[in-house]
């Protein structure tokens, strides 16, 4: 097993790429000196709290604010009628739909925002919320997406009736949002018609919520005298928020300042714009006072962006030797009451078409249908790049199902179908170009490390004794780093990212990026990139993000895009500075640029020992002695539009033992090998992988947001919603290979989402494997003890004696 000691070189004064430098963020966090949105206090600040619907679907007959307004300390109670004159009672979503800011005549989901109370304290606001009297007339509720398109289904979105397009192409029913197809349907059909073997499997990927430690919130402060709006906000994309706020409010972007301070985890949940933010901003503009809105945990789990909720059916066609000939996938996507999921505009199902995985599949076809239901709106979020988790889950499950049908080992079926090392760059049947990979090497490394043959032997013995042991295997390929602007935009803005680096005369550096860290450690790793590129110590490099008044425009941090896009911009900007520094060095040393060579932190004259200038010396000279005609200073900006996504991959193996009387799953071993190309800070990568595996474990083993038949959300507290602690979490073994990305300036790929995407199907693979000899091909998540026990009980394995 690999250790994380790799790259720790305390003597290295630069602490650049490859160094396990300690996180620069941590001293302030462990001392309680972080500065989160809820820490922001402003003079004259008032507080917002929201009146929410107990019904999943109802007409609002009346709203009586009188009792609430009579409470001392209450400043205002706003409803949709108050926002109407400002045209802010509805807002556009990133997916081309609209979402009610405050319910307009109707509620479409439980906990929907109905009114907002502004008061002197959070407590007064909460008390007044209880006094707002709302009269509802309950309507029939639609919970099951399979029933959404039936002729007699209740129509949810009366505002969209008659519209044949709600932002993502033609639709065929008032509850239908879009149909999205990719691939060659007829060629795929032919592959199935002529196939020697084919398999099919239905599976449900439950609705789950990222539930970061910090819930969502903001402090909006409108300065009436200056006409200037400042908003502290829990956002993974502050620049996009500024653009949206400008479009909604009519204020110029130059008069809006959005600040994402320290963010307590995002995982995709903090990309969207929520009604709470909008109401706080409106309230601040109306009252001319700072307004704070911070949601509680129930509000967070009930209304903010969740992930998945995909009903998937997969089919594989193959020959008798297991070589895949075709893949067909159909998905029913439950998007809830509003199509508000955050994703690049052109991709109604995100990057789901990465579903061909790590395999050389000649032909494929995917169809996804999105529908409205009376549930909270959202989608996409949760530590993965736009629906990649669902895609990887499907193909990895299907590989196991095909192996089972052929009586082949699940490692062997993968070996036979992998895209080979020499095939890269590889064009998939669904239109992606995988940049680099070496899947066979990674697989064999893991199988050797865990003694796979030995595990299979042990499993055979256990099965003979009637015990349940399962081995899971996943060989995934991710697609991260959105993205090339020709393919990806948000509200029409290309998904580039940016870096602005300034070297001060003494050789210290300030650098600002368009991304925003939420725990990924950007302040540490970006500094390492600059340190290596410029030969200046990481310790002296200050990284700032999240303030739209100072940072260059960028699309933010989600979908593992910071290293692939922001990291690339940082490297390219640093190289611009490096090139200028070389000119200054040549000037100072009175030689031609071409006579210089670079070594760690200095330019040396080739063949003349001692004739050299360090970057520190050059920085000083940049402010007083530059070549004639050159402008002074040492700084650069880069807006990086990536030529392609990056495609990190990994091989995960999991061993479980299952108690056949309780259904309890014990994860005996979990081995995770990741390849993210060039490794910038191995310790941070290790930490990100641990985090992703923990969240993968959470999703596979317990997380879900279940609704009852009336649309009541039954899992929106931590009594029900599973957050694993160190008590439940298994021990993780990590390993790596390095296959650099050919198009990234550093050869680096994104990584933090791989462990989430890769581990979830690995747990399912292991648990199903424990029952595979009894003919079971799939079990839906979450694999909690009760559900596993039900499977055991159905098979009659729990009979004693």
């Amino acid at each position, binding site marked *: 097993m690999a250790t994380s000691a790799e790259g720790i070189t305390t003597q290295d004064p630069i602490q650049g790429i490859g160094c396990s430098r300690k996180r620069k963020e941590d001293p302030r966090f462990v001392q309680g000196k972080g500065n989160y949105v809820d820490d922001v206090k402003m003079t004259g600040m008032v507080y917002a709290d929201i009146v929410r619907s*107990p019904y999943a679907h109802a007409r609002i007959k009346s709203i009586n604010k009188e009792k609430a307004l009579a409470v001392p300390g209450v400043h205002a109670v706003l409803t949709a009628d108050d926002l109407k004159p400002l045209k802010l009672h509805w807002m556009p979503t990133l997916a081309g739909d609209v979402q009610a800011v405050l319910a307009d005549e109707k509620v479409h989901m439980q906990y929907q925002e109905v009114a907002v109370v502004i008061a002197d304290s959070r407590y007064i606001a909460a008390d007044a919320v209880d006094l*707002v009297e709302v009269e509802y007339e*309950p309507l029939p509720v639609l919970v099951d997406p399979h029933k959404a398109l039936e002729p007699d289904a209740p129509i949810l979105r009366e505002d969209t009736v008659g519209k044949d397009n709600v932002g993502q192409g033609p639709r065929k029913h008032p509850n239908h949002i879009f149909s999205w197809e990719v691939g060659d349907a007829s060629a795929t059909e032919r592959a199935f018609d002529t196939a020697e073997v084919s398999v099919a499997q239905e599976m449900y990927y439950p609705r789950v919520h990222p539930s970061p430690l910090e819930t969502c919130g903001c402090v909006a402060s409108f300065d009436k005298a200056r006409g200037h709006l400042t908003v502290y906000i829990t956002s993974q994309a502050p620049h996009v928020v500024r653009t949206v706020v400008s479009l909604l409010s009519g204020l110029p972007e130059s008069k809006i300042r959005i600040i994402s301070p320290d963010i307590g985890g995002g995982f995709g949940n903090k990309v969207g714009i929520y009604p709470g933010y909008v109401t706080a901003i409106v309230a601040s503009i109306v009252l001319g006072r700072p307004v704070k809105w911070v949601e509680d945990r129930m509000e967070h789990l009930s209304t903010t962006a969740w992930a998945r909720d995909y009903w998937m059916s997969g089919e594989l066609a193959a020959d008798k030797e297991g070589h895949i000939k075709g893949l067909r996938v159909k998905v029913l996507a439950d998007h809830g009451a509003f199509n508000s999921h955050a994703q690049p505009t052109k991709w109604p199902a995100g990057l789901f078409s990465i579903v061909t995985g790590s395999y050389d599949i000649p032909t494929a076809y995917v169809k996804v249908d999105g529908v409205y239901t009376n549930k909270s709106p959202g989608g996409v979020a949760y530590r993965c790049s736009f629906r990649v988790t669902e895609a990887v889950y499907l193909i990895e499950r299907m590989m196991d199902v095909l192996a089972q049908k052929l009586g082949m080992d699940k490692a062997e079926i993968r070996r036979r179908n992998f895209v080979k090392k020499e095939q890269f760059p590889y064009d998939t049947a669904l239109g992606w170009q995988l940049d680099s990979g070496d899947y066979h090497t990674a697989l064999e490394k893991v199988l050797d490390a865990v003694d796979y043959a030995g595990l299979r032997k042990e499993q055979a013995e256990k099965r003979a004794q009637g015990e349940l042991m399962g081995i899971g295997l996943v060989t995934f390929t991710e697609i991260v780093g959105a993205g090339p602007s020709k393919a990806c935009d948000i509200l029409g803005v290309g998904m580039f990212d940016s870096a602005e680096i300034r070297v001060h005369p003494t050789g210290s550096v300030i650098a600002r990026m368009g991304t925003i860290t939420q725990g990924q450690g950007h302040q540490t790793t970006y500094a390492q990139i600059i340190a290596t590129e410029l030969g200046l110590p990481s310790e002296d490099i200050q990284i700032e993000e999240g303030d739209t008044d100072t940072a260059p425009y960028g699309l933010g941090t989600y979908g593992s895009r910071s290293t692939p896009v922001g990291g690339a911009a940082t490297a390219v900007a640093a190289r611009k500075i490096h090139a200028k520094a070389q000119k200054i060095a040549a000037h100072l040393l009175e030689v031609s640029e071409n006579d210089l060579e670079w070594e760690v932190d200095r330019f040396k004259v080739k063949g003349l020992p001692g004739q050299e200038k360090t970057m520190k010396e050059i920085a000083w000279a940049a402010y007083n002695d530059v070549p004639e005609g050159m402008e002074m200073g040492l700084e650069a900006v880069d807006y990086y539009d990536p030529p392609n996504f990056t495609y990190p991959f990994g091989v995960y193996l999991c061993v479980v033992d299952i108690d056949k009387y309780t259904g309890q799953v014990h994860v005996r071993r979990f081995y995770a090998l990741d390849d993210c190309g060039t490794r910038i800070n191995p310790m941070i990568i290790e930490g990100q992988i641990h985090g992703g595996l923990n969240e993968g474990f959470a999703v596979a083993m317990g997380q879900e947001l279940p609704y009852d*038949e009336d649309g009541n959300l039954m899992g929106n507290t931590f*009594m029900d919603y599973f957050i694993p602690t160190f008590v439940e979490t298994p021990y993780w073994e990590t390993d790596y290979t390095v296959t650099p990305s050919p198009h990234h300036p550093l050869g680096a790929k994104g990584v933090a989402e791989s462990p989430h995407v890769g581990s979830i199907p690995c747990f399912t693979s292991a648990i199903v494997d424990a029952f595979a000899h009894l003919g079971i091909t799939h079990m839906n998540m979450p694999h909690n003890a009760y559900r596993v026990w039900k499977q055991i009980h159905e098979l009659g394995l729990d009979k004693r004696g």
Partner: protein
Amino acid sequence: MHVNLDKTFPIEVPLNSAWKFLQDIPGVASCMPGAEITEVVDDRHYKGAVKAKLGPATMAFNGDIEVKGMDAAKHELQLLGRGQDTKGSSSAEMDLTAQLVETGSNACELKGSAVVTVNGKAASLGGRMMTQVADQILNQFGKNFTAHVLATQEGDAAAASEAQERLAEQPKELNGLAFAWSVIVGFFRSLFGAKSSSN
């Protein structure tokens, strides 16, 4: 979420005495722990309130009660109660059918069948206890109903005063702590296969 409940309570009084009481809607409502009729709209429509205390939280439901049916031949009453908690975060509905069946010259049975629906926070937070809690509510209703009938019946003065005492001891609101205990007891009884008590 919905819970379906069916209960039978034996009552040691003649059918007619019990039927007389069953037609007294405010009287019947007062048998529901924590419930009272606050306004009589007409003989089929009433306004009522239910107060429930669960630990530190008090939920107060205000709502409408409608007499859907009163069948003298079958000795059957159908009631629909529908309310919203005063904080606006939950709502509840109870569709109740109560029927009296003669089991002897001086005895009858009250057969109660109810569908209880809860929405909002009460469902999210209390969903997993709903069946047990509703079960206990109906048990309490049965006890109170029996006591009321006994207390108001003519003839057996001793039994009547004893029943009146029992009624006086009844808590005036739905007390969650007492409920929690009976719910726990009920849970363990069902766990060990014992028949849960029905009166």
